């Protein structure tokens, strides 16, 4: 997750960071020294807390079989890999577990998606302007590695008095779509974002749902191959309309360059 890189950003947002694993204290001490870790690495050597929390990874064999990895005896006792976000009262407000220890988000992504803040660690950003809509797109990080998950965030600024259509939509209209050009090994997950709001057009019997004002969407990109340095090419297609008129349907292209890194010192 390269958490240490984002530690100052978490601190600036008043978020304390803790990491828990089944490693012994001596393992954690040398790890912390080697990597300059500035947050608590808690040792749950007998996996007692991990078990009590219900987070013991009892599907390790299954996951390892999937990846063709042999499970050693000393691998038992590991936790499922993921993060909890706690509010100031200690209540869990978000939980990010990706189902596979291989797939990892970045610290910057967790800061933004769990705590609603953007920090100093940022990826490439691109902007485009079309009829009635300004688009800004960015990635969490400027690099990816094998089984990295990066979020592609797309901000739409829709001019006052205009809207763009969501789905479902009657035939003949253009809904908002955000697509990523295929890259070998790149898996694009479901788009997250606000729900479109009902909108009724004068003199028309058809029902529409629309976005207006500012709308921020995000798509999870998981890189399952080492595809080298590459460019994430996103396209945003939409048609902006007012209550009475429509502007021409438009596709905006945004290019976000990413470099591949091969070596990651540590999963945390």
């Amino acid at each position, binding site marked *: 997750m390269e958490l240490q890189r984002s530690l100052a950003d978490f601190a600036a947002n008043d978020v304390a960071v803790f990491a828990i694993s089944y490693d012994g204290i001596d393992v954690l001490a040398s790890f912390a020294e080697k990597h300059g870790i500035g947050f608590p*690495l808690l040792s749950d050597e007998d996996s007692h807390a991990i078990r009590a929390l219900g987070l013991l990874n009892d599907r390790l064999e299954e996951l390892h079989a999937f990846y063709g990895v042999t499970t050693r005896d000393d691998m038992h006792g590991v936790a499922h890999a993921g993060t909890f976000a706690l509010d100031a009262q200690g209540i869990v407000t978000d939980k990010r577990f990706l*189902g596979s220890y291989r797939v990892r988000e970045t610290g910057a992504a967790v800061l933004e998606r769990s705590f609603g803040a953007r920090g100093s660690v940022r990826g490439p950003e691109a902007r485009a302007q079309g009829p009635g809509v300004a688009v800004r797109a960015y990635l969490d990080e400027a690099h990816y590695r094998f089984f990295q998950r990066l979020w592609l965030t797309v901000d739409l600024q829709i001019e006052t008095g205009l809207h763009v259509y969501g789905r479902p939509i009657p035939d003949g209209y253009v809904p908002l779509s955000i697509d990523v050009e295929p890259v070998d090994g790149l898996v694009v997950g479901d788009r997250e974002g606000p729900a479109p709001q009902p909108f009724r057009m004068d003199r028309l019997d058809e029902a529409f749902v629309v976005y207006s004002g500012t709308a921020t969407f995000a798509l999870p990109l998981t890189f399952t191959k080492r595809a080298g340095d590459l460019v994430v090419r996103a396209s945003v297609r939409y048609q902006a309309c007012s209550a009475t008129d429509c502007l021409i349907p438009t596709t905006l292209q945004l290019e976000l360059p990413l470099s591949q890194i091969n070596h990651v010192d540590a999963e945390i």
Partner: protein
Amino acid sequence: MPPALFPTIDFTDIGPRVGERFPDVALPDQRGELVDLHAARGERRALVVFYRSARW
């Protein structure tokens, strides 16, 4: 459906749920000092990360 490139598990009910208070946890840190998670965060929000291992 394309073949899955990585397994997925539904984590909704695995571990503490959203909306619940995170349970009390007290464990030694890398210096061997006992850390009570809620006491250590004080009034701050917190990120609690579970990971596989610092060793493998």
